[in-house]
């Protein structure tokens, strides 16, 4: 679809192919917890605590982690639906909302989001064509043209416009509604699409269809995805890079096959071994991890995973590991003392491991 005919053309590539589309540095968000009325000291949930990563152009970064690890908060911070306490972002080589950088309005248009709840993310009082046309109309596209574009987008996501354009959200199935949400996100010709658990609420067969649609659209429109999910299979399927989060921090990040094949962080390994095996002879016998994630109000000292980690050592409680590249594979980074020869952990690797 060509939307160049309306006043604000989509943002074009500026940084070149090697420049990551989005670089996030040290993103932080603490939520104040309402304590007792007379309590002076405020408590904070460390929802996102110093998250840094980058998303290469045209690739998909999958973010995985347990519920409450800060995945969705990270997404909302990036989308600026919520103000971050600190941290900055660089979008295609330009600082977001910084002097001399990309303006917030322009950034917003280059980035769209698809939410988990396909029903709550559609206004029940608007027909789906109206919903898709709303955004472009806000930006000054004439009504007729916005409508025409909405119909074309509906056709592209596999919903026959003549049939579906004038329907209300409650008249569609979950998969169809999620297609509408995708169409709405595409109405701006965005460059980055954040998919926040976008297929989690769909059943398996519909999930596969929507994932395939996402893959097609990505190739067709040179999109970059930030794919947030707790479903390890889906992330494995769709991602080029994977980032694992635990209690508001990144514990491991790297190319998808490295993470799924040679996970370097004990938490990632535990997470992956929790996936049920299809082979009955290979069933998981012992639970890979004991206990619940610690309270994010008072996260453990040092490495946040140390109180559940099978390899914990006093050094883990004393100092926090840095997210560093693995020897011989700098793109694969893990925040674990085991991978840092200088950490002082007795079991830390001293040379490149196979």
């Amino acid at each position, binding site marked *: 679809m060509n939307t160049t005919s309306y006043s604000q053309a989509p943002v074009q590539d500026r940084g070149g192919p090697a420049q990551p589309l989005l670089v996030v540095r040290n993103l932080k968000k603490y939520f104040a917890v309402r304590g007792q009325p007379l309590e002076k000291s405020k408590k904070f949930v460390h929802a996102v605590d110093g998250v840094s990563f980058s998303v290469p152009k045209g690739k998909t970064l999958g973010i995985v982690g347990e519920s409450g690890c800060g995945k969705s908060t990270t997404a909302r911070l990036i*989308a600026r639906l919520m103000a971050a306490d600190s941290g900055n972002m660089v979008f295609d080589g330009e600082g977001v909302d910084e002097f001399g950088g990309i303006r917030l309005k322009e950034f917003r248009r280059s980035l769209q989001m698809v939410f988990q*709840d396909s029903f*709550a993310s559609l*206004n029940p*009082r608007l027909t789906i064509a109206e*919903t898709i046309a*709303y*955004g472009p109309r806000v930006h000054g596209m004439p009504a007729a043209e916005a409508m025409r574009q909405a119909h074309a987008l509906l056709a592209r996501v*596999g919903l026959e416009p003549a049939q579906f354009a004038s329907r209300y959200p*409650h008249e569609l199935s979950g998969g169809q509604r999620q297609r509408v949400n995708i169409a709405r996100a595409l109405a701006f010709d965005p460059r980055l699409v954040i998919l926040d658990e976008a297929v989690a609420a769909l059943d398996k067969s519909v999930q596969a269809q929507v994932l395939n649609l996402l893959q097609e659209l990505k190739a067709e429109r040179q999109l970059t995805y930030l794919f947030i999910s707790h479903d390890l299979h889906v992330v494995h399927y769709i991602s080029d890079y994977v980032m694992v989060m635990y209690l508001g921090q990144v514990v491991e990040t790297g190319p998808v096959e490295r993470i799924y094949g040679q996970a370097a962080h004990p938490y990632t390994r535990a997470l992956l071994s929790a996936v049920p095996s299809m082979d009955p002879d290979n069933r998981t016998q012992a639970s890979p991890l004991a206990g619940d994630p610690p309270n994010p109000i008072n996260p453990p000292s040092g490495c946040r995973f140390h109180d559940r980690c099978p390899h914990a050592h006093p050094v883990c409680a004393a100092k926090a590991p840095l997210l560093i590249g693995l020897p011989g594979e700098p793109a694969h980074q893990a925040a674990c003392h085991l991978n840092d020869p200088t950490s002082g952990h007795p079991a830390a690797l001293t040379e490149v491991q196979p």
Partner: protein
Amino acid sequence: MSASLELSLRAAAVAAPAPSRSYWLVVWRQLRHDPMALAAGLVLLIIIGAAVFAPWLAPADPYKASMIKRLLPIGSPCFLLGTDELGRDMLSRLMHGGRLSLLMGVVPVLAAFGIGTAIGLFAGYVGGKVNMVIMRVLDVFYAFPSVLLAVAISGALGPGMSNSLLALTLVFVPQVVRVAESVTTQVRQLDYIEAARMSGAGAFSIIRVHVLGNVLGPVFVYATGLLSVSMILASGLSFLGLGVKPPEPEWGLMLNTLRSAIYVNPWIAALPGALIFVTSIAFNLLADSVRSAMDIRR
């Protein structure tokens, strides 16, 4: 492709092309097939019609008294519904009385609907401390029973129709604000508001397109329910001598003046009350039907 399979299945299920789907058209179609709504609407239409066209339809002068023809029973020749304690034609007085009674039922609710929705939307959308201040101030009003508040304000402002209209409006505003605020707060957190913010829309556009449409329904229904309350309160004010003054015909006032005749001719004395009752029931039933028709997700 799997997508086209889902599509063709869907196409087979609904072969007919979708008719025009404007929201209010859908609501109207629902209402048209609801016998309760039609009956209540018909009753209201008759009552409102009789009141509006009273000067042309009424068989007699509602002010013309006669000492001889006092308290004639229902069905007397020339006086279809009898006469009141001053010998005035009841039917004519009821028809004329409807004008004031309905006016005092509708105007305060309309005013409160407009003012209350605006305040509620603002408080709900802005949230935080602003919301708290607005809502706590209105809670002070809300703490009083409606009748007491209406009587107090009306009494403070002095008797008269415009004052009682003002008093009733003030009674209803906090209630409407409460409903509007709570629905707005609910709607504001939904993902479609976030999606609209993602598209770079301003607060005003979001409120107009996404919030208002979804808040108006519940508030409208609540306000329709207030119509009967307003009528009853207005009648109550008139009954207490705070609203309309005699000899002006008004249902509540008529109820008051006929009170003395209740042992002589109870049927006549009950007539204005019966009309108030029927009208408010009709308003309530219609409001109920509109509520279910407006909920199009079924």
